[in-house]
């Protein structure tokens, strides 16, 4: 069974009777975790909002500019909209391809019986190998005279410039990213499939449901909690895309593969605009939070939690 993270914190566990609670003891145990949480997560989150109100060079005196960074971002910086559009495009394509393919592969592996677990782990390998190593070997494979075009040449096809053609570069990044990330969802969905009771499918079969009907009427509703979890996590992950464009295309050609985090990184550490970079970071934060909140608000409508 899988215990997906739900936000239900209530539990039915009997606790050691304690009339006055464990105030002081709790403080001692929570101190490391909560201090670290405050110093390295809460404080930076608040600080980045403050920094985004400043003109903040790395060396020199920060100057308060109010909402100027945000105004410039939204009205005076065409690159921001390009970057936002690219990131949204990447997020939609990556999420859809990843989920559809992961669902297909998970169902396929599930039908393979004893072979399933081995291949499930095989698909998971790129998730745990360093993204930098993955990206570099893809860059080698996708160069003009790389192995992919050599293979196409043996078929008599003249392969394109995968990474320097502005029409293809983003597609190449999406393909590489789906390859690298898909194993995660295959495992989550595979665990979800394992949790579906065979009796249920058998009952549907006896009632005369065909294979497609069983998939859409039984398997998908039963998988919806896992699918919901995968969707939330995959979308969050897709908005953080950085390493792939940084190493494969440098955001080019032009700005066609530039993404929010890459643009944030360059503003902060190449252009020495830490204030503007923080405004971009907050834009990213707000977008991701809004999308995640939207998904959770639709959870009851989309997800079937009755067994």
């Amino acid at each position, binding site marked *: 069974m899988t215990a997906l993270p739900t936000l239900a914190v209530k539990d039915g566990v009997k606790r050691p009777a304690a009339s006055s609670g*464990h105030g002081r003891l709790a403080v001692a145990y929570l101190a490391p975790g909560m201090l670290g949480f405050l110093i390295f997560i809460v404080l930076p*989150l608040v600080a*980045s909002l403050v920094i985004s109100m400043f003109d903040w060079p790395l060396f020199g005196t920060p100057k308060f500019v109010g909402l100027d960074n945000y105004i410039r971002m939204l009205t005076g910086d065409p690159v921001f909209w390009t970057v936002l559009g690219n990131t949204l495009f990447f997020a939609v394509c990556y999420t859809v391809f990843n989920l559809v393919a992961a669902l297909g592969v998970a169902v396929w592996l599930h*039908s393979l019986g004893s072979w399933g677990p081995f*291949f499930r782990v095989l698909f998971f390998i790129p998730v745990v190998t*360093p993204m930098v190593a993955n990206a570099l070997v*893809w860059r080698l494979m996708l160069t003009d005279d790389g192995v992919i075009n050599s293979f196409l040449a043996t078929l008599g096809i003249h392969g394109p410039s995968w990474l320097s053609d502005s029409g293809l570069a983003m597609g190449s990044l999406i393909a590489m990213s789906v390859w690298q990330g898909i194993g995660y969802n295959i495992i989550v969905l595979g665990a979800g499939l394992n949790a579906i009771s065979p009796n249920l499918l058998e009952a549907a079969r006896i009632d005369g449901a065909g294979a497609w009907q069983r998939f859409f009427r039984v398997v998908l509703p039963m998988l919806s909690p896992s699918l919901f979890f995968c969707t939330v996590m995959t979308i969050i992950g897709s908005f953080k895309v950085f390493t792939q464009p940084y190493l494969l295309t440098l955001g080019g050609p032009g700005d066609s593969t530039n993404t929010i*985090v890459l643009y944030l990184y360059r503003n902060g550490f190449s252009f020495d605009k830490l204030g503007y970079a923080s405004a971009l970071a907050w834009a990213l934060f707000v977008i991701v939070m809004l999308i995640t909140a939207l998904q959770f608000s639709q959870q009851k409508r989309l997800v079937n939690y009755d067994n």
Partner: protein
Amino acid sequence: MTTETLAQPDADKRLAHRRRTRSVRTRRRTGRYISRIGVILVGLAFFFPFIWMFATSLKPTSEIFSTGSSFLASRVEWSNYVTAWTAIPFGRVIINSFLVAVLGAVLTTVVSLLSAYAFARLQFKHRDKLFLVFLGTLVLPQEVLVIPLYIMMNKLDLVNSLPALIVPFAFGAFGAFLIRQFLLSLPVEFEEAARIDGAGSMRILWSVILPLVRAPLAVVAVFSFIDYWSSFLWPLIVINDVSQATIPLGLSMFSGERGTDWGPLMAAATVAVIPSLLVVILLQHQLVKGVSMGGFGGR
């Protein structure tokens, strides 16, 4: 399967039925063979980049592109591994990577265990509210925090140091969440018995709980190890001296002055991939368990 009315089962019908089931069975069997051959082909194609990485690491520089799609060059060039070792202080970089990943995993696991114990077993005001806020940060992209964290490291004079790579990312909610979930599923009777025998909470945590939570602890340790091992954006920001670099950063520094030296670079990439492969092979059950509990939030 066929639905037979059992009104008058005459011989003819029975024979037809038997023939039909046999053909269904053979069709099933060939279907399974095709499916298995298919999954082997797809699996090989999927694994191909790693095969190509290793094949390229053994090719002489002059033949990397002239060999086209062949795995083999005219000779096997092991010296790429030597070149990789000397191009950047690679031994040092590997040691840094292990130091960061091991210490990071230990710190994350210890802190997570202490927090999880408090949230699962102790009673204090606003406990569940605090936990919810903490859990909410699971969906916070760490990329949002890198600018203030960098300024912080600058002020603390920790830029270019291994602690800067380790400490800021040891306080995520995932580990505490996972161990807490596990603790909630354990009966409290053991702990109560120990308490009646006069054990303090530290003693209970050490002698009673620790042996019981080995499984989720292993999951948290493995996941944070991999996260530290693969992390790129943060090292890229906070480290600019190659002697303090971790493997991903070292790899990205390879393509330098005179184009990319692919043979040694793929040799280094192969070395970077091996520990992850070992982790997958040795700890697949922990990984699968961890993923289905929500580890690697949205990578």
